[in-house]
């Protein structure tokens, strides 16, 4: 079933907001206000289609890349940016930085280790199951993370316990500097589903509607108590591994990057919406303008926020 026009517009708007946030961070990076790197999600905004099928009481665990998880769940980009600056008004009071969290929206933290999220997702789903609730957990991971033992241990456990969890692999073909061909024995991460006796599906990760439709089905299945699924989104990271100039470049074929730029998920979805008359050229302009303004407000908020007092370094270790 196709989402209603209103939801289509919301998906499009969140994709545009995600891109606008990325462009803001990229523009700020050379100014030195963000004292560490940022992993850009430009080109992977098709993920918004997966996030848009969730309820407020669902849980999401997320990768180190991109801000879409936060923007779709309702986080304030000003507070995200403030956290990247290390300001007191950031979501973690300046203690987490790019290892962002927004606990109110059930986004509990970016793992500093690749694959650290998988077991945590298992636990979130275990809590839901023990309490007999109908929330679900959506756990995002990359193709590189599919090589971690934690991923395999966790997939096995979710299947054995029939947990309400949707594994969403963002397969962008690269783990840092290393292509999948050098690191991964399987071509499709979705093939793991068969080993773990759960449904697996491959979708075009840059087709946001396909992503939405596939994940919605898996969410419904998990919510009904029928157990976990694995969905693999074939996508691509357009930017380098990290913003901030400290990461090597030149390891990819420029033609490969250019080819994927032509499959930009936002442009593709815009064309679909325009052709269907869901979106007008005027609205395209308006949504873009609003997203840019939202990010300007965010930047002003982060710029004007204070750094935390040094005493904060000594608080909050224990509850």
């Amino acid at each position, binding site marked *: 079933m196709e989402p209603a026009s209103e939801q289509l517009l919301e998906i499009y708007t969140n994709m545009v907001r995600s891109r606008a946030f990325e462009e803001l961070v990229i523009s700020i990076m050379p100014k030195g206000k963000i004292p560490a790197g940022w992993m850009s999600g430009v080109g992977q905004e098709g993920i918004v289609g997966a996030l848009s099928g969730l309820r407020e009481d669902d*849980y999401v*665990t997320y990768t180190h890349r991109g801000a879409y998880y936060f923007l779709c769940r309702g986080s304030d980009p000003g507070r995200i940016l403030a956290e990247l600056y290390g300001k007191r008004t950031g*979501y*973690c*009071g300046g*203690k*987490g930085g790019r*290892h962002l*969290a927004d*606990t*109110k929206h059930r986004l*509990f*933290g970016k*793992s*500093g*280790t690749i694959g*650290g999220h*998988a*077991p*945590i*997702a*298992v*636990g*979130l*789903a*275990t*809590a*839901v*199951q*023990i309490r007999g609730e109908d929330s679900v957990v959506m756990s995002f991971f990359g193709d590189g993370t599919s090589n971690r*033992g*934690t991923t395999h*241990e*966790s997939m*096995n*456990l979710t299947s*054995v*316990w029939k947990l309400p969890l949707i594994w969403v692999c963002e397969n962008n073909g690269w783990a840092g500097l290393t292509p999948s061909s050098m690191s991964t024995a399987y071509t499709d991460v979705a093939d793991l589903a068969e080993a773990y006796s759960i449904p697996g599906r491959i979708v075009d990760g840059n087709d946001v509607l396909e992503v939405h439709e596939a994940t919605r089905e898996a969410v419904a299945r998990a919510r009904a108590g029928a157990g976990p699924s694995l969905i693999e989104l074939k996508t691509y990271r357009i930017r380098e591994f990290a913003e901030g100039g400290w990461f090597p470049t030149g390891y990819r074929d420029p033609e490969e990057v250019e080819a994927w730029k032509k499959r930009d998920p936002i442009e593709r979805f815009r064309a679909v919406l325009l052709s269907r008359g869901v979106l007008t050229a005027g609205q395209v302009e308006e949504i873009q303008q609003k997203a840019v303004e939202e990010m300007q407000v965010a930047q002003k908020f982060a710029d004007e926020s204070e750094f935390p007092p040094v005493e*904060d370094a000594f608080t*909050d*270790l*224990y*509850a």
Partner: protein
Amino acid sequence: MRTIGFMQAMNEALQEEMRRDPSVYVLGLGVHYSGTHPSVTAGLIDEFGAARVRSTPVSEAAVAGSCVGAALAGMRPVAQFSLADFVFCALDEILCKAGKWRYTHGAEGGMSLPIVFLETIGGYVSAASEHSQSPLALYAHAPGLKIAVPTTPYNAKGLLKTAIRDNNPVVFFPHKRLMGAQGPVPEEDYTVPFGQAEVRREGRDVTVVATSYMVTLALEAASKLEEQGVDTEVIDPLTLEPLDTERIVESVRKTGRRVVVDEDTERCGVGAEIGMQVVERAFDALKAPIQRVSNPNLPVPYSRPLEQAVLPSREKIEKAIQQTLAA
């Protein structure tokens, strides 16, 4: 007062806390099976069912990390890992997630991580290098965890109840050689607080601080030396985080002499930490150098005589006490 075993005491703590609080659940290898031998989780499945008594695969990282996730969602998991040696596979989950996420991510929203990790430690059972470790210092070195080291059935039950009710991650270390111990345990509800060392034996001449099964050996050494007129005080910290430094320093101010006994490898170990705490706070009270009795940084060997050569013993403790008295 009735006398019960160490494992039954832990079992009762789990049972009573699971009755008291529906968010408490246990998970680990084989916890569904009550078996024919005493065990910490025996019988729980009959009362609480498979949802709250969850047998797991051999997946230490997934099990430990799942405790973090469940705790973030408001549960109070208790993970039964059997040997501490196996938990090295899950240190990212325990040290970096359980220990650090509240500080790193929980500045608002009151994030708490109420988890108990049960890890059996210790040698003296010919189990060789990968089944005999006592890695207390490893955990003590990491921020954000609490560390409980029970030594009797009474404090095992009371400390475990405190651990389950605590809103922070607690690593709880029973010792293989103590799991068969019997002792008096009241029938009524009680807890043993964290951060309060127990003086297991009062004495005037020398203070021995010992952890876990080392308390038993230290008490034996103290009895032996009593025949020679040496009056030994034995202090059992019970928790290493929080550590009752005050009680330890107070004792050293009385005796002026200190021995630390810890089964873990000596370098950067609990003995080094407790020794330094005394040096920083009561150097002026020391009449002799502090002595350490620990594993001299070796893997624990299998063969009985070799194992005894590496691990602390009553005789080694006696010798250390005599050395500090002779200095």
